[in-house]
């Protein structure tokens, strides 16, 4: 097997010493792999994805990005975070920056690219996610779907090794979900390594190499999407899926 691009070994996390949020998580993500994480709310899937770039610190176990152990908060961690793209449920575009500035900020301030260089590649990325004509606007002037596509472009501008998506379509109106999913499907098709927390079964079926089902802080089941959705192995997963389908 190829060396994992991101790996979690024996990861445990508690909130406030009592709430056991992640229970002995072991997960490897290979280069070019698309992993979808699903599970009921409160199952720890967002916490899991947020530990991969240490937005949430862990108390036990180890997490590696491309073989390197996640360091403590500081310069070294900032450097490693630049290699891990993150797309949030609530977009989190920088509210005081234009769309173009949102995408050029990281490349200029972190990767130390020139303004011209950052601008040129930002324009290409905005073109790729279909919001090039909005470059001079501020985030609040865009629809949710457009903002999320800009957020994806902002992450891609850092040329990350792996992209994390934390429920990227959950805050969107139904008609905007597809435009974001389409961008994600294109990324998957282009071989991007992705970890995606989502309930979008359509995306999982057409793009995921693997589905990880979580419940109560633990990984309960892993499988390829066809097998998982057709005949999940565990009762807990079957129960969850039945609710997902009927509603």
């Amino acid at each position, binding site marked *: 097997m190829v060396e994992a691009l991101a790996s979690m070994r024996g990861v445990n996390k508690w909130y406030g010493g009592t709430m056991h949020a992640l229970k002995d998580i072991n997960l490897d993500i290979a280069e070019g792999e698309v992993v979808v994480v699903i599970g009921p709310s409160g199952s720890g899937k967002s916490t899991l994805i947020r530990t991969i770039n240490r937005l949430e610190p862990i108390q036990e176990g180890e997490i590696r990005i491309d073989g390197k152990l996640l360091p403590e908060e500081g310069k070294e961690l900032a450097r490693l975070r630049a*290699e891990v793209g993150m797309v949030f449920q609530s977009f*989190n575009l920088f509210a005081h920056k234009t769309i173009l500035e949102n995408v050029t900020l990281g490349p200029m*301030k972190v990767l130390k690219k020139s303004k011209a260089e950052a601008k040129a590649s930002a324009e290409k990325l905005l073109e790729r996610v279909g919001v090039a004509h909005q470059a001079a606007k501020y985030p609040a002037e865009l629809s949710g779907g457009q903002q999320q596509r800009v957020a994806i472009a902002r992450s891609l501008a850092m040329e990350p090794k792996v992209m994390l998506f934390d429920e990227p379509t959950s805050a969107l109106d139904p008609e905007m979900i597809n435009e974001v999913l389409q961008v994600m499907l294109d990324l998957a098709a282009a071989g991007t390594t992705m970890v995606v927390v989502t309930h979008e079964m359509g995306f999982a079926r057409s793009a995921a190499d693997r589905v990880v089902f979580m419940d109560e802080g633990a990984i309960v089941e892993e499988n390829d999407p066809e097998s998982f959705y057709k005949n999940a192995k565990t009762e807990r997963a079957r129960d969850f899926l039945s609710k997902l389908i009927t509603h």
Partner: protein
Amino acid sequence: MSWSEFLDKYQGPLIDAAWTTLRLAFVSFGIALVVGIIVVSFRVSPIPPLVRVATWFVAFFRNTPLLVVFFLALFGLGDLGLVYDFFPTAAVALGLYTGAYMAEVLRSGINAVPQGQAEAGRSIGLGFIQLMRLIVIPQAVRTVIGPIGNLFVANFKNTAVASTISVLELTGQSQRMFNDAAAGVWRVLIVITAIYLLFLFPAGYVFRWLDARFSIKR
């Protein structure tokens, strides 16, 4: 003394005094902005000793009368040989005093910046100082333009206290004119008050305009 005699005698000193007030107000406010940004950065930093320094700084200046701060600056800084002249002493004292309030105003602005903005900044690899400088402080400032405007006005009026350490600004000048019986106490009061109002009414408009122009739409 007629109005024209009054103006003949006092026009020059009044213009000088108004200019001194204006300079003191702007220089001290500039110091307050810088001090406020540094102190609030300490206050929200993840380093406990810096947090403590910032907390003490704010507590000290918020609980010490401004006049006492001026005396401390005059004798304290003077004895340390740091500042020699009355004007810079007053500017530093007032700047530190208003800076403490500025830090608190900025802190409320920082608390109003959504957590997600900082998380997005961290996840593209910004370090703590970059995050503060590029994302958090610019947004914080824009959400508290109104309160900063209030501080500007309060700071402007507090320049009057500098008269007690021999800075000849508007209030100091008015005290001199009170000694001239011919000038008339009421005439002096009206003139001085009018000059303060002339400066501070427009300031209110400017800050309302800045707020409308720069406040962040979410």
